C-alpha cells in the first residue's frame, strides 16, 4: 500500500529526511496554528535527532579547514 503525500510532505521529503528547514529555497515547515517559535524549535530538534541517528565515525572531521596564514 502506498501513502499519499500532500505538497508539504513532498517538500519535506525533498529535503532528504524528517522535517527540516532548507532556508532560502524551501519554506519552513510549520504545523498549522502552532506557535512559530515552538515550531522552529521542533524542526531543529528533529534535524538534530535525525543527525544523531547517523553512524558517524570518530575519524570524521568537519568540512572546514583552518589554514595558518
Amino acid at each position, binding site marked *: 500500500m*502506498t*501513502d*499519499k*503525500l*500532500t*505538497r*508539504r510532505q*513532498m517538500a*519535506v*521529503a*525533498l*529535503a*532528504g*529526511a*524528517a522535517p*527540516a*528547514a*532548507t*532556508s*532560502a*529555497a*524551501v*519554506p*519552513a*515547515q*510549520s504545523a498549522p496554528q502552532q*506557535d*512559530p*517559535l515552538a*515550531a*522552529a*524549535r521542533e*524542526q*531543529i530538534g*528533529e*534535524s*538534530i535527532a*535525525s*543527525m*544523531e*541517528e*547517523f553512524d*558517524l565515525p570518530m575519524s*570524521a*572531521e*568537519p*568540512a*572546514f579547514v583552518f589554514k595558518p596564514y
Partner: protein
Amino acid sequence: MADFSDDVFFSSIPDLNARLKAREFSAKELARAFLDRLERLGPEYNALSLSLRKRALQEAEDVDGDMKRERYRSPLQGIPCGVKDLLSVGGLPTTWGAKPYQDLVFEDDATVVNKLGGAGAVLIGKLAMVELAGGGGYNSADASLTGPGLNPWDKTRWSGGSSSGPGSAVAAGLVTFAVGSETSGSILTPSAFCGVTGLRPTYGYVSRHGAMALSWTMDKIGPMCRSAEDCGLVLQEISGGDREDPGSAGKSFYYTPRFARKFEDITIGFAPADFEEWPEEPIRPVLRQALETLIGLGFKVKEIELPDLPYGPVTGTIIDAEGSAIFEPLIKSGEVDQLADASQIAGLKAGLEIKAKDYLRAMRIRRIIQKRFRELFVDVSLMVTPARFGVAPSAFESLDSPGPERPRPDSRGLSSLIPAGNLTGLPALSLPCGFVDGLPLGISIVGRPFYENTMLAVGKAYQQRTDWHTRRPPAPS
C-alpha cells in the same frame, strides 16, 4: 534619440554588445531606455529595490567614451544589468530585503559590483529579494521589504526566491542579465519559476566580499540570464580569486565552450523517479521531453540515485546555526521582530539555540556527504534532474499550503539534489525547458566542482535545439 523595440529588451548579451559597437544606439540611450522600463515595470512585479539612474547614466557615458576610442573591455560592455539587493553599492542603500536594514549603507562596492564596472557593464538597479535571503525559513511570498515577488508569466504566482527580483527582472526584459545568490535553491528556484537561465557556480568561484552573508560555507553568487551563453560571459567577468573572501577558491573562469569535453565522452546520471514520480503529473511529459532532448545531444546515460544521507537536517542545521550567528545582533536587539515573516523571525531566534556540538556534527556528516559525491562522480560527469517538481505556486497563499495528494514515490532519485548540491558546493545550471498552463519549467544540470565550462556548453547546445529560453511573458497591461 533611438526608438527601442521590445527586441532590444529581450536581446542576448552578444547581440546587444554588437549593436552598441555598430553604433546603432549609444550606451547612454540604451541605459535610459532600460531604466525607464525598469522603473515603470519593476514595481509591477515587486522586482525593484532601488533604481541606480544617476550612477548608471554616468557609467553609460563612460562606456560611450571608451567605445568611441574603440577601447573594448569585455562582452558585457554597455549591457544594462541588475544585482540582488544583498550586494553593496557604495554610498547607496543595500537593504537585504529586510525592514531592519532598509537604511543600511556601505562605503564600498561589493567585489562583484566592482568587477561588473570594470567589465563595462552598466548597473541600473538593485533588485528585490526575500528578506535576509530567507535566513530563518519563510512560508509566505510576502517575506520581503518590497512585497511578494510576482511572476511576469502570471502575476498571481510567485517569482520564486530568494533571488526574486533578479528572476522576474530578467524574465520581463527589465535588465539584460542579473546577479543573484544561492545558499540552497535561491538561484535555481526563481530561474525555474520565471523561465530564465540561472547558474549557481562552484562555491568559492565568485567572491562573496560585500555580499550579505547568510551562510559562510554555503553562499554562492551567480548569474541569472536569458541563456547559458550569457551566463558563461557573466561568470567570466565576475569570477576570480579575492583575498577579502576567506572562502575564495582563488580561480578564474574562462568561458570557452569549444574546449568543453566532447558530449560522447560524457556520462549523464539521472533517476527515472525524478521524471516519472516526483513531479506533479501534468508537468511530467514536459520534463521527460527535456531529458530526451538533452540525452539526444549524444551523451552516455546511467541511472543513479543519491545515497541515503540526511541532506535536509544537515543543510538546515548549518544554515540555521551560521545564519543566526551572523544575525545575532539583530536577534538579541529584538529588531528581528520587524521582519515580515513570522516563521523567519522564529527560525532565526531558534537558530541561536543550536549547540556547537550539533553544528559540528552537521559539518562532519557534510564531509562524508562530500566523499560519497566524489564516489558518484566516478561513474558520471553530470547529473540531470528537474529544477523544481512543480510550477510557480500562488503568491498570495501560504507557500506551505497543502497541494494535491499523490502517492509517495518509491525511489528517492536525485530529489534532494538542491540541498545536497549546495552542501557539497557543486555548480548547477537551470535551463528553461517548457511550459504548463503558461507557467515555465526548468531542468537542472549539476556537475563536479569547477565543471562550469562543460555544463554551459551543454546548456548552449540544448538551447540551440530548443527555444524555451527565448519566450517572452505576456506584455504587462
